[in-house]
């Protein structure tokens, strides 16, 4: 069982126009840089994207936006992206805003065979519109649907050839959930290690959720807000 593939260009060939893709990452942290770039290069159109954010103007999912490859995005926050603003105002892109916790849970649910669940997030707000409201023990909850995507793009730190993945620090974020939600999950990682190297007690995404693994090189890992303190001092 060897899920390791060599070419990003080759791997995205299976993704047709109109596909839906769950894309890991939070802001620009833990995003599948190489898979996004390969998809930009391939020019695949009419994509439905499930992702917490939509990158920035010149990086991450923002690159797909710029090329007008995205038809619809389901996200919790798209405020960092001016390209998005223009396309939204022009009606070129459809957006479904969903609370961050609801998005995370919808991805997990879809990947877990749970078609729908109830959450209080958004009850009594504009996003409740059109959703079933149900009261449990005196509180209103919204019915939210699980997400199953045709593909998932995830970015790991290390993987083995079975497709076991570990993430690094907060670059974990939505990645394990996207891996669950994808019918075909493609993982890019910084390092592919020998089978048996990853501690079985510390694997974040077990192999069963992953179909393809690729090693990326020269990761940019851009930082959106560089906040620091001076040595020994305060922020």
């Amino acid at each position, binding site marked *: 069982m060897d899920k390791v593939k060599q070419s990003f260009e080759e791997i995205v060939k299976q993704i047709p126009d109109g596909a839906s893709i769950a894309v890991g990452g*939070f*802001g*620009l*942290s*833990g995003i599948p840089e190489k898979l996004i770039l390969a998809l930009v290069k391939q020019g695949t159109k009419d994509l439905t994207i499930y992702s*917490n954010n939509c990158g920035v103007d010149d990086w991450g999912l923002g690159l797909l936006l710029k090329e007008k490859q995205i038809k619809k995005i389901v996200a*919790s*926050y*798209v*405020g*960092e992206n001016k390209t998005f*603003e223009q396309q*939204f*105002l022009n009606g070129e892109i459809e*957006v479904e*805003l969903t*609370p*961050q*916790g*609801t998005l*995370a*849970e919808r*991805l*997990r649910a879809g990947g877990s065979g749970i078609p729908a669940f109830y*959450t*209080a*997030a*958004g*009850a*009594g*707000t*504009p*996003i409740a519109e059109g959703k079933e409201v149900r009261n449990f023990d005196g509180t209103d909850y919204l019915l939210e649907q699980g997400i199953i995507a045709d593909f998932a793009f995830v970015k790991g*730190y290390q993987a083995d050839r079975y497709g076991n993945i570990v*993430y*690094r*620090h*907060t*670059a*974990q*974020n*939505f*990645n*394990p*959930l996207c891996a669950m939600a994808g019918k075909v999950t493609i993982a890019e990682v910084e390092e592919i290690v020998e089978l048996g190297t990853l501690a079985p007690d510390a694997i*974040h995404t077990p192999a069963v959720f992953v179909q393809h693994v690729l090693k990326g090189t020269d990761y940019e*890992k*851009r*930082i*959106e*807000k*560089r*906040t*620091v*303190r*001076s*040595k*020994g001092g*305060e*922020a």
Partner: protein
Amino acid sequence: MAAREVIVQRAVKEVQDGMNINLGIGMPTLVADALPEGVDVLLQSENGMLGIGPYPVEGTEDADLINAGKETITAAKGASYFDSATSFSMIRGGHIDLAILGGMEVSERGDLANWMIPGKMVKGMGGAMDLVVGAKRVIVIMEHVNKHGESKVKKTCTLPLTGQQVISRLITDLAVFDFTPEGMVLIELLDGHTLEEVTEKTEASFQNGLNKGEAKSRF
């Protein structure tokens, strides 16, 4: 003191040793820096972390270690990382003792609006809608009036809601209010402000609980 500083200094008094706390983006983040030495709390970040430390020393920033505001941070001793679903299990499941969030408008019923201004670009609610329904205690901190001098403490919010009847306490640069089964109650005046001034600058109806000891929060 500047308005924001007054608010942050008052907000920090809400923090108790041993709490699990989520601080919203913007002004609430400043509460972390204002915590007194020795207060042992765990700061949670929606993207998937418990135990946020201070900003990194220059040159040690790590793109794989950011908070919900996408700022580079560090991990405190005893920190943990997890996926975003687990993060919101903590939040929605009532395991976060305290959320301190910014506000655009607050209503006398304890409604919060802080995510959207109609006609302006939609940015999204991020984790705010989950936090307001899930945290054990939701404290909103914001300036009492907007830059046009209009009250942000409303009878009814005019902006789209983040959550309905979700706020435990409101801290502004003028006063502190609790939201109780009997309505909104003024419990403190800040920084030398008077009841008259607060009354004048508050569109919402509130009871005066200044001499009644601490109001009992609804939540």
